[in-house]
């Protein structure tokens, strides 16, 4: 199963996504060296000792991702992941009580501001439309003049006085452009100014006041923040590769540490998983998180395409929305929403921690008990909305300034389904590596694509998901050219299946890739935590071989015929917008 965590997919990860089905190699004897224990609250620890170098890697996995989000809070898993670096009641603040009060005031100011945004802004817009309409009713020769008046009235902190057919506007007050204008108006125009004064100005002022209150409250709360203290402690202690990721299915936290700092690690990790303080919540959300959405999705053609692709392909289950979330939800989510979400999902029943390196089980046990026991117990939440069978082909054509791309997804069952290894085999033969069917046909023979790949499990594998084929055309070819060629290869698999040689090559590649994946501490920690979380048992990492080995040529034909059906597919194409 793909173990790669992504916030939102990018071309880069499509390129590195390699099959990671794994194979039991008894001679490695690794499986027997792996130890595990569970705390009373359910937090599950997996430990592999490796005393070569005095360092260790860990991975904490929380069994929650964007697929758990409901409408209105999309993107909240990812926001929470950002907040996990903001510290705790011990770390990152300088006055617990004062900060708590300041944050409560900040929350209140946010709610008032949010209310203003949701209620006042539409009212202002409606009134503005009316004013514009009235303005257009003025004689043509006065319109340009009145536009000037109008823009002066909207100026920052404009003060407006109507007197004897004159309007005096002091605008841009408090800025370098500050000035006072004196306009001679006729009766019709004065009526418009009065309309502005009574219908728009009070609303704008109220909105601006709410915004200012909110800014002030944020500034006030900031007084009690020791900026990035958590990260600082990790870094000055030699922490390395600090990172976190949110996917559709899981949230991951990771870094590498010198092994003499095991207890310090346990303190830091246990503390942030049990007692986080969501400080700088609004600054983080409206700043870095929003900018992340802009760079990954809004300003990235691949991100734009994949977001609407997911929207189209998955109508009901949690894969419908992208992990980064909708912009309006990012804006509207409150700290209370986030705290509730944390409480619901960050409990012992959803938490797996894997450690690999120069550490000893007994120490891990001791410190785990000492620092992770405050985390409450809980049951993993079940998601009840299943993706209904797709009945019609869905196609989306995105006209975009970017160069053309093509993607097609077919619905498949989730990672626990008995046919999962068959999906993996199909995806591998169809579109992994230089000898894959797609690469041979589209790239080498027809010269219509520079890149063509397929893989099972986009965007996740915990729920009903998709087998995705993706291709980039050579210059001068379009997504439509690729579409035809990809269907020909897919049809060939449906009709003829795959060859014995292809199947045995998949098995051999699987074996080699499995071993490659075990070499680094961090890779190993990631795989152990991943298999434990998504299959319920890390041992499945070593027992995938029987599953892959049991796949037959007939299985491939049967499953291919089942999934590669026109009504089961969703097609996404970027059609390049022509400069006019």
């Amino acid at each position, binding site marked *: 199963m793909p173990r790669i965590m992504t916030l939102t997919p990018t071309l880069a990860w499509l390129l590195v996504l390699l099959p990671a089905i794994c194979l039991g190699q008894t001679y490695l004897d690794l499986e027997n060296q792996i130890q595990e224990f569970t705390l009373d609250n359910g937090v599950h620890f997996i430990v592999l000792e490796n005393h*070569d*170098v*005095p*360092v260790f890697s860990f991975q904490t996995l929380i069994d929650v991702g964007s697929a758990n989000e409901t409408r209105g809070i999309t993107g909240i898993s990812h926001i929470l992941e950002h907040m996990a*670096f903001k510290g705790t009641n*011990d*770390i990152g603040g300088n006055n617990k009580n004062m900060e708590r009060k300041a944050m409560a005031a900040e929350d209140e100011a946010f709610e008032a501001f949010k209310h203003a945004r949701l209620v006042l802004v539409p009212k202002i817009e409606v009134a503005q439309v009316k004013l514009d309409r009235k303005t257009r009713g003025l004689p043509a020769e006065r319109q340009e003049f009145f536009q000037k008046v109008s823009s002066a009235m909207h100026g920052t902190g404009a003060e407006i006085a109507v007197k004897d057919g004159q309007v005096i506007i002091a605008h841009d007050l408090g800025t370098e452009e500050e000035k006072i204008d004196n306009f001679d108006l006729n009766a019709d125009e004065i009526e418009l100014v009065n309309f502005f004064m009574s219908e728009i100005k009070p609303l704008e002022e109220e909105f601006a006041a709410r915004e200012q209150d909110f800014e002030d409250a944020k500034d006030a709360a900031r007084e009690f923040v020791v*900026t*990035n203290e958590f*990260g*600082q*402690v990790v*870094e*000055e*202690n*030699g922490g*390395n590769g600090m990172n976190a990721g949110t996917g559709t299915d899981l949230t991951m936290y990771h870094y590498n540490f*010198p*092994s*003499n700092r095991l*207890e*310090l690690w346990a*303190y*830091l990790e246990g503390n942030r998983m049990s007692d986080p303080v969501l400080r*700088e919540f609004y600054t983080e959300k409206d*700043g*870095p*998180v*929003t*900018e*992340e959405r*802009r*760079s990954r999705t*809004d*300003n990235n*053609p691949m991100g734009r395409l994949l977001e609407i692709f997911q929207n189209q392909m998955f109508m009901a289950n949690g894969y419908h929305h992208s992990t980064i979330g909708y912009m309006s939800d990012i804006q509207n989510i409150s700290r209370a929403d986030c705290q509730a979400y944390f409480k619901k999902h960050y409990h012992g029943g959803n938490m797996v921690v894997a450690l690999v390196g*120069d550490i000893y089980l007994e120490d891990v046990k001791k410190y785990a008990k000492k620092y992770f026991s405050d985390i409450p117990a809980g049951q993993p939440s079940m998601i009840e909305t299943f993706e209904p069978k797709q009945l019609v082909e869905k196609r989306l054509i995105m006209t975009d*300034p970017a*160069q053309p791309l093509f993607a097609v997804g077919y619905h498949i069952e989730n990672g626990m389904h008995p046919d999962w290894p068959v999906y993996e085999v199909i995806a591998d033969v169809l579109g992994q590596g*230089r*000898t894959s069917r797609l690469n041979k046909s589209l*790239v*080498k023979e027809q*010269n219509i694509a*520079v890149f063509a790949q397929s893989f099972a499990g986009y965007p996740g594998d915990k729920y009903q998901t998709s087998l995705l084929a993706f291709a*980039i*055309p050579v*210059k*001068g070819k379009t997504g439509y050219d690729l579409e035809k060629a990809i269907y020909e290869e897919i049809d060939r698999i449906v009709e003829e299946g795959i060859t014995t040689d292809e199947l*045995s*090559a998949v098995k*051999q*590649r699987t074996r*080699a890739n499995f*071993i*490659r994946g075990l*070499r*680094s501490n961090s890779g190993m920690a990631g795989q152990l935590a991943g298999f434990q979380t998504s299959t319920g048992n890390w041992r499945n990492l070593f027992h995938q071989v029987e599953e892959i080995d049991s796949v037959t040529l007939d299985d491939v034909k049967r499953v291919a015929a089942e999934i590669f059906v026109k009504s089961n597919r969703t097609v996404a194409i970027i059609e390049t917008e*022509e*400069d006019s």
Partner: protein
Amino acid sequence: MIRMNRVLVLGLLVVLVASVALTGPAVAKKKWEKIEIPELNEVKMPAFERVELDNGMIVYLAEDHKFPLVELSATIDAGSIYEPADKVGLASMTGEVMRSGGTVTTDGDALDEMIEARGMRVETWIGNTDGGAYLSVMKEDTALGMELLADILMNPAFPEDKIKLAKESQKAGISRRNDDPMTIARREAMKAVFGADHELARHTEYATIASVTRDDMLAFHADWFHPDRMYLVVIGDFDSKEMVNLIESSFAGWEKATKVLPADPEIPEFPRTVNVVNKEDLTQTTVIMGHNGIRADSPHYAGVLVGNRILGGGFATRLFNEVRSRQGLAYSVGSRSGTGFRFPGLFMAFTMTKSESSQKATQAILTEIQRMRTEEVTDEELERAKDGILNSEVFSYDTKREILNRMVMFERYGYAPDFLKKYQESVKSMTKAKVLEAAKAVWHPDRMTILAVGAYNDWDSDFSSFGPVTMVDIEIPEPALEIPDATPESLAHGKELMTLCAEDCGGVKKFKALKSLFMVNSMDATIQGMDLTFTTEKSIRYPGYSHYLLKTPFGNQTTVLAGEKGWASGTQGVQDLEGEQLQAAKDELKTDTIGIYRNLDKLKCQALVPTKVDGVPCNPVHISGIGDDYRIVFLRADNNRVFMVQQPGMSPMSGAPVTQKMYIDEYMEIEWLTTAKKLRLLYDDELFGSITVTEVKINPQLDGSLFVK
């Protein structure tokens, strides 16, 4: 029998890695500061060997029997810095086709099958400053893998079909290079800092890719791929002695280099420039600012690294705290110290921020950099940065691959093997004054060239406060039109396109049935500063009669074709058309636009690769078959109408050969005929005249005397 020139075996040496106790404030220790930190276990330096083979190849080996794998990586002194400026892309494509094209004995596809069936990984590449190769195999495939890799490195075949694929891939890359703002920013920033033509900054264009030939690749390979230019690092489940044997036998017969390695390109120093790429569809601005830095052998190396750890090289830095966490201006913000082992690095800072805070974020970064130069860092910051570097030093030894690759790097660039130890010592003794001194010596915010990509009109300022702004045009120069050999498919497709076009403009049948045509147009041209108007009256009786009357301010000129005869008359009297001139007049009648529609079955119409003409997507069709002449008709991709016709022509002024282009800017409809109304005539892309068609008559009665001498 192997003879090792020098074998150096290092046993289990113990490297002391500092474990620094935190020097927190004496009062009120925080909770985590009370946690006891025991002594760090010893770092055991893994055993490895360095062998220099007779052929000059340097091999570093480290056995690792934990997993049944063997992994090899090679570094070769061959980079794109050695390719000619008009063939940018040669090195990179050579690196690709070495692997994809296979060898003289095993073709690329066969190689792929062999490699993937065994789950091996074999790759080659050539980057900016180095070439490289990588092999990863299961233990039992070691000999086979080594043999394949050696064959690829020594005897690549560079077949034309795989060269074509590599070129297609390069071209696709060029066409996509403006899709992602960060890609644009990095590329343009390098050009802005080092100069657009510099070896470290220049990039491919359609023209440079087109100019690369198979001979170039063979020559590039022959020049730079030799054993004495190569460093191998081999790690895994093998016996070192056997491995050296295997390497020697696999690479047997490979000649040493004869060509001298050129000196590294100089790194220029330029004053600041401010450069803006305006891309209106963006809501976020990507800013990179930078100037050249220092080599690792500079006395300021450690100072700059410690300083950068405080400035922007990490999670809890000044830039991260200020720009990201406190001001909430960006998701990504940071700085690179500007140090390099071979070249002086690029000191740079970057951010991605919303359009409305472009200036604010840029200024905030520059202010922080300036602060590093004007005041000392705090004791606390210094201690944290030193602790961070020293405590994470153990990660420099956590994989064998990392250790050996570093040895290779030190050896190639002439650094002592204990460089890292010395660096650690400098960090330990680092002071606030030294950090300040290094920042002053190396970092110059006023010299940092700025490159920003975004929707310029939405920014909070026009950036002129940073200096005079240069707008950078990133429009991709279109490739020269390639006229490949015709294939049955391209001919059929060309005919199909032209037929569609003819049908749209009236219908092939109607054109064929056309008996006569009368047309008047007038052309406004500026010649030697004079605005002149020329009027042409064309009278045509198909298939073989034409009468062109050209009215100029200097008098009239008539050219007549009457079956097998023709003549021209003007102020200098009447002259018969003969030979080539007569043939040209006949051809002209068959190959003007209507002539083409009438003669589609006789002409050779070859579809070329779609392209853009002045930003408009077009399907070009190369038309030949009547006379020696050809023309390329560019049909608009959206409606199949003729957008432009290109053909060889003659300058009316000098008589020199030129490329003539006729654009049809407006169409009109006359009865069933859709025909040009407004046109522009260009010679070598210079506008010559604007033409308006003022009168068209279909099947008019023509005065027979027109065609009588």
